């Protein structure tokens, strides 16, 4: 009897709680940003508040804040609240939770590889009508950056802060060696080996380095004419056709000779950047998004060039797209913000000038501001020109799950000197399982 009543009370309580939970969910569908505004948005009449979540910290974050301020100053009826939500992966997690509880922001930045996770869940708004209002179509955007923008015929995201890996060169070192900027793998290997300076057993200058990332091995696989996924998206051709093996063997040989410095996983980007600015490495593979920061740090002749080719030039792309959530509250104001970003000189264009990301529309490329910047700092133009060779062969819903496996393979080969063939076979096995899901 006692046990029974306890059970009844418990069940009642849980259902009560569940009911409470449901009510709360519905009662709170006001935009999260209203809290930050002290709730004043509702009674100030016409003014609507929209949220913009992004992953830009540091100086890039300041550029976002400045951009949003320019918008707010020009639009008295709309207040955009920009919120830094952590790195790309953290932002994705928060967006998932927000979307699940109907609290998604109007506009958000999503790393290109994660876009499909959201389009697959059908939570993103179609942007064709938004762009139509201001006479823009998808053909106005730079083709190489449109890889992750369409889903079932709808335009669900637009490129925003996009970048590619590029080769950063310390030309002063090359001149000292009497060598030219490498354009293919063989030349790169020669330069990298020649640039090494050893002080006893300690290497004080390396030839080549790159951040710990899947980007660079993928770029090299594509330079060999390989792809990450096959057309039918069931397997990873590079693990069997010898191209993956060739890439890692090339890197391992350079590493064994002391010419390649492969950095530790944690914080690898800042480690290689400071090595480069301190003149401790001749050639750096790194994102175009770092050009601005490197320019400030270097005191030598710094140039950028295409990633060296093997059978072809090739580069993957990266960085973030922006999206609108379909069930967000103030979609119209969100649309106005999107239109402003893509068309006005004070919008994304100025942000791109401030940071070093790639221009995203043809109009931006032809604008006086960008042309002026390029004539002043020609190294920024290289990245844009390289877009001609931009292709992403890792597009699949399963990529976010496969990427950690790819990282494990990099770690096994680059840190633990494990057998390349066996490691790639293991990677293929997990990738095929994840692709089949």
């Amino acid at each position, binding site marked *: 009897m006692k046990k029974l*009543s*306890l059970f009844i*009370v*418990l069940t009642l*309580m*849980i259902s009560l*709680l*569940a009911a409470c939970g449901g009510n709360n969910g519905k009662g709170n569908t006001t935009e999260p940003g209203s809290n930050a505004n002290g709730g004043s948005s509702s009674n100030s009449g016409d003014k609507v508040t929209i949220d913009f979540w992004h992953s830009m910290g540091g100086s890039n974050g300041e550029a976002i804040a400045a951009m949003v301020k320019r918008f707010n100053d020009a639009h008295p009826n709309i207040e955009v609240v920009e919120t830094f939500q952590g790195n790309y*992966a953290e932002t*994705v*997690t928060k967006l*998932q*939770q927000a*979307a*699940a509880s109907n609290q998604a922001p109007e506009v958000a930045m999503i790393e290109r590889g*994660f876009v499909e*996770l*959201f389009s*697959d*869940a*059908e*939570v993103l708004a179609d942007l064709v009508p938004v762009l139509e209002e201001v006479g823009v179509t998808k053909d106005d955007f730079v083709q190489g950056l449109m890889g992750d923008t369409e889903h079932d015929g709808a335009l669900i995201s637009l490129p925003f802060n996009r970048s590619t890996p590029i080769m950063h060169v310390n030309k002063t070192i090359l001149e000292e060696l009497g060598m030219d900027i490498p354009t293919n793998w063989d030349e790169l290997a020669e330069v990298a080996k020649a640039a090494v300076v050893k002080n006893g057993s*300690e290497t004080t200058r390396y030839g080549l380095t790159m951040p710990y990332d899947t980007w660079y091995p993928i770029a090299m696989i594509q330079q060999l004419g390989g792809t990450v996924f096959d057309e039918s998206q069931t397997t990873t051709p590079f693990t069997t056709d010898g191209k993956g093996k060739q890439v890692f063997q090339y890197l391992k040989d350079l590493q064994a000779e002391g010419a390649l410095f492969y950095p*530790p*996983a*944690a914080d690898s980007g800042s480690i290689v950047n400071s090595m480069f600015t301190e003149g401790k490495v001749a050639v750096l593979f790194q994102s175009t998004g770092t050009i601005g920061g490197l320019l400030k740090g270097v005191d030598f002749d710094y140039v950028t060039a295409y990633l060296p080719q093997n059978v072809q030039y090739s580069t993957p792309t990266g960085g973030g797209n922006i999206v609108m959530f379909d069930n967000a509250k103030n979609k119209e104001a969100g649309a106005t913000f999107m239109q402003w970003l893509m068309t006005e000189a004070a919008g994304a264009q100025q942000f791109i000038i401030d940071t070093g990301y790639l221009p995203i529309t043809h109009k931006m490329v032809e604008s006086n501001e960008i042309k002026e910047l390029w004539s002043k700092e020609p190294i920024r133009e290289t990245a844009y020109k390289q877009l001609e060779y931009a292709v992403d062969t890792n597009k699949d819903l399963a990529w*976010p*799950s496969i990427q*950690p496996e790819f*990282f*494990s393979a990099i*770690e*096994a080969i680059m*840190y*633990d000197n*494990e057998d390349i063939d066996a490691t790639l076979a293991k990677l293929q096995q997990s990738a095929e399982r994840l692709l089949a899901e």
Partner: protein
Amino acid sequence: MGKKRVSSVIRPYLMILPAMIGIGVFVIYPIFYLAYLSLHKYNLMNPAKSKFIGLDNYADLFARDEFYKVLGNTALYTFATVLITLVLSVAIAVWVSKNTKFNQFIQAGIFTPHIVSIVSIALVWMWMMEPSLGFLNYILKSVGLPTSQWLQSSSTAMASIIFVSVWQGIGYYVLIIVAALQGVSPSIYEAASLDNASKWKIFYKITLPMISPQLFFILIIMTIGSFKVFDTVRMMTLGGPNNSTNTLVYYIYQNRTTNIGYASATGMVLMLVIGILTFVYFRMLANKVHYQ
């Protein structure tokens, strides 16, 4: 009469209601929800697209090599951390248990890492463990010892993390054991010394049994805590290199974005393992622990 009986039946439940609401919201509901998620291929953003897949997530989990690797790592981490911490903290506690100025200084010194945020600690140790420029290798080199790759090789990364965890946690446990030692009645020691008992005999026949409740407490708390290790892994290695420091909780964290059902299934397994461990501890050790 009837009224009285009803109220006397209901009253206790009313009394515990506030506490039960808290437990219901924050413990019972999440557990059931976790179990629910673990049986689905769940789409967080669009529940309509979720699929009930029965025990597939569990089958998948137990079929993957990486799960056993992660489980093994967690067990190794727990075993090593608990054992080293226990032995060292008992030794240090016995050493500093006499209440002198010098001992208080030592105690404060050992305790300090515990009050510093693990994030700062992890960052400082990461700098010191950096293989080419770090302080530790500099010291090793200057005294002519071979250097280590520390966090950057899968053969040393786990040991490095265990080292930092022990270093950070030990002060707290020393404090507990010192308090326990000081609580042991001096009359027992006097009786033992009258009997001419050796120091070692006094230690394991008197000291250890008398502080066994505290040791037992530490054992349970530490085992459960270590099994759920996350912060040091997240800060120092991100589970690498090559999964060598990946632990259960970090593994759950890694899978949360792309496959919440699978992550939930792992969470259920973690809960089960900790449940079993606690049960076994209480069963096996309860009668070996001396309560005054």
